[in-house]
């Protein structure tokens, strides 16, 4: 697919992701590119958000073989691989930065079960990595499900995410991304959730200044290749791609811890209104209790396979956090 010869035996490969310049997926892509180009004659062209369409579009283009590589967050992959929505279940990933990297490195679910699910769709899963802790912003600090009552919280359109916020006591309100800033400003919605670097770059703290660290999840993403393309490559190129993905993964897992703090600092520097609320262990408990409701919904949607995946996730979490 789409290989134009560039110099002796080198090909030009195309890679699309869902974020803007300098965001986590863009950093990952450029590290991947750096390794490929330094260790082979191949070149890599990176396309950012919107340049080739929306998230579903670039995924389809990769399945078609127009693109060799794509980065799509499992949440968006739900329309293709329902099980990928497991990352929306609250409190399934460790809240603490110290555990999250280990979790992604050691999880059997992520490293063994997910590649099989992606392969069914003609995709070679190369890496799954965390982008940042999900942070809720709201018009006032929230510490309990009672505080969430009557608040419209903007979410991406997804049934499991709706279930989560309903379980939290809020009113989930699906809204296209372009309307979020304006809707917060005019108080149509009273809050939203996003990783902190999005809250910073999208300026959402300007109109929704109370940051709440609920510890309920990490924004997770996945990077993959078109499987026909990947399998048509000679073994040394397959190894090159695996090594490049590992190289980018290792870079990102050093980069992520601390990124949240740096972004939070930026936010606090540019606004006096911002408040930061971190839920304590006891404050988290009622939110954690409500997770069962979401898990049941997930199993309804995905059946036996989803159930197995969920059990493995919990075992993996246990293995990392221990007691």
């Amino acid at each position, binding site marked *: 697919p789409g290989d134009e010869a560039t110099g002796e035996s080198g090909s030009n490969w195309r890679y699309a992701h869902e974020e803007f310049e*300098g965001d986590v997926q863009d950093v990952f892509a450029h590290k991947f590119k750096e390794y490929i180009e330094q260790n082979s004659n191949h070149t890599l062209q990176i396309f950012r958000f919107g340049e080739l369409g929306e998230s579903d579009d670039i995924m389809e283009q990769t399945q078609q073989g127009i693109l060799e590589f794509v980065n799509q967050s499992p949440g968006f992959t739900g329309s293709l691989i329902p099980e990928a929505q497991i990352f929306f279940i609250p409190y399934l990933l460790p809240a603490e930065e110290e555990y999250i990297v280990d979790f992604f490195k050691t999880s059997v679910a992520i490293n063994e079960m997910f590649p099989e699910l992606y392969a069914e769709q003609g995709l070679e899963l190369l890496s799954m990595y965390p982008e940042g802790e999900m942070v809720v912003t709201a018009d006032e600090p929230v510490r309990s499900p009672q505080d969430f009552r009557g608040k419209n919280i903007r979410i991406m359109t997804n049934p499991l995410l709706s279930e989560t916020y309903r379980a939290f006591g809020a009113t989930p309100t699906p809204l296209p991304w372009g309307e979020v800033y304006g809707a917060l400003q005019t108080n149509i919605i009273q809050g939203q959730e996003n990783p902190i670097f999005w809250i910073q770059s999208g300026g959402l703290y300007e109109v929704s200044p109370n940051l709440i660290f609920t510890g309920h999840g990490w924004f997770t993403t996945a990077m993959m290749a078109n499987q026909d393309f990947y399998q048509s490559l000679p073994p040394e190129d397959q190894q090159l791609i695996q090594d490049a993905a590992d190289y980018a993964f290792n870079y990102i897992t050093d980069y992520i811890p601390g990124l949240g703090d740096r972004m939070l600092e930026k936010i606090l520097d540019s606004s006096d209104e911002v408040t930061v609320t971190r839920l304590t262990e006891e404050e988290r408990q009622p939110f954690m209790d409500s997770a069962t409701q979401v898990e049941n919904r997930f199993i309804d949607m995905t059946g036996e396979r989803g159930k197995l995946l969920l059990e493995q996730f919990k075992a993996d979490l246990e293995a990392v956090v221990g007691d």
Partner: protein
Amino acid sequence: MALIMLVLMITLLLLGFPMMIPLIVAAIVGFYMSFDGFGQMNTLIQQLLGGIRPAALIAVPMFILAADIMTRGHSAQRLINMVMAFIGHIRGGLAVSTAASCTLFGAVSGSTQATVVAIGSPLRPRMLKAGYKDPFTLALIINSSDIAFLIPPSIGMILYGVISGTSIGELFIAGIGPGLLILLLFSIYCVIYATIKGVPTEPKATWKEKLIALKEALWPLGFPAIIVGGIYGGVFSPTEAAAACVLYAIILEFIVFRTLKLIDLYKIAKSTGLVTAVVFILVAVGNGFSWIISFAQIPQAVIGSLGIHEAGYAGVLIAIAVAFFIACMFVDPIVVILVLTPIFAPAVASAGIDPVLVGVIITLMVAIGSATPPFGCDIFTAIAIFKRPYWEVIRGTPPFVIILVFAAALIMMFPQIALFLRDMAYS
């Protein structure tokens, strides 16, 4: 490849093909050349459908529907009569009110196409009746709708803010000054035009007449209340406000005024569907065309070859203005902002230009480019709604484009027009 596509497109356009054909043929050729054959046409279809996917587009047919109901019933007429009772005796007053209404409606609704329909369709016949020529009227409606790009909430500014890491709040505030400046310049032109062409004024209405007109317009005044109050007051999103207008229009015309019957609703819905389809098919093919331009990295190639990094402060600003203007003449503004903003970012940084100022200039250029032939959604909308030939719709455009370019030059020379309010708010 870019050259072949451009020549083909312009040739087919000039021959008088339906507007979707030049765009789609250029896109097919682009795909054929990029992928050595017809093997990847799935993606062209995917992108056609992607063009009409955004949820925000729903506001367009909803505002068209509401406007059509109002215009066929009595609401629109009563509103206009009220405005005329107050400003009918002023020379150019109707044109100025049209410009102001378009700006306000566009700013609030966030959709310039909906503005052309909702404000243009009731006001255009009135302007023609008052003695304004059609090309002037059409160009006024299209161009003043596009001022709305500058006034918050503005999707273009949000996108630019996120991509360039600029505060969206600051961008919003900075857009207001230039937006009002352009409205002022348009208004001056309206008065000059009305004076030169000797557009007659109406006799000044007495206070009693004004009161009656106001009373007549009491119910229909709910529309501006829903739109302006509803959106800025945080009750509705733009799409919701559009739906609320439809509901309100149905209640007024079918129940309160009883001007329309149920069978009329069927006819109105059909004509709304027709107008929506002919505009949206162009949005769709425009998206397919934009995709292949972006995939082939044509903008990067063109701009990279110019060497703007050494152009200095004024040079970079002018290069940005020209690039966005030309790109928006042919390609969807959203795609233009997504693709070009990162390309210029390093030059902006090294020349030390305030990114808020750049955002304002870019948004203004997007506005100009969208109202400028050959391709512009608002032009298409005007053709579809008013059923006038392409040539007549664009003939009155040049004075407005000159004013807009003049305004852009003013803002580049005196950045305080944009930054004054921002500096006050954020110092």
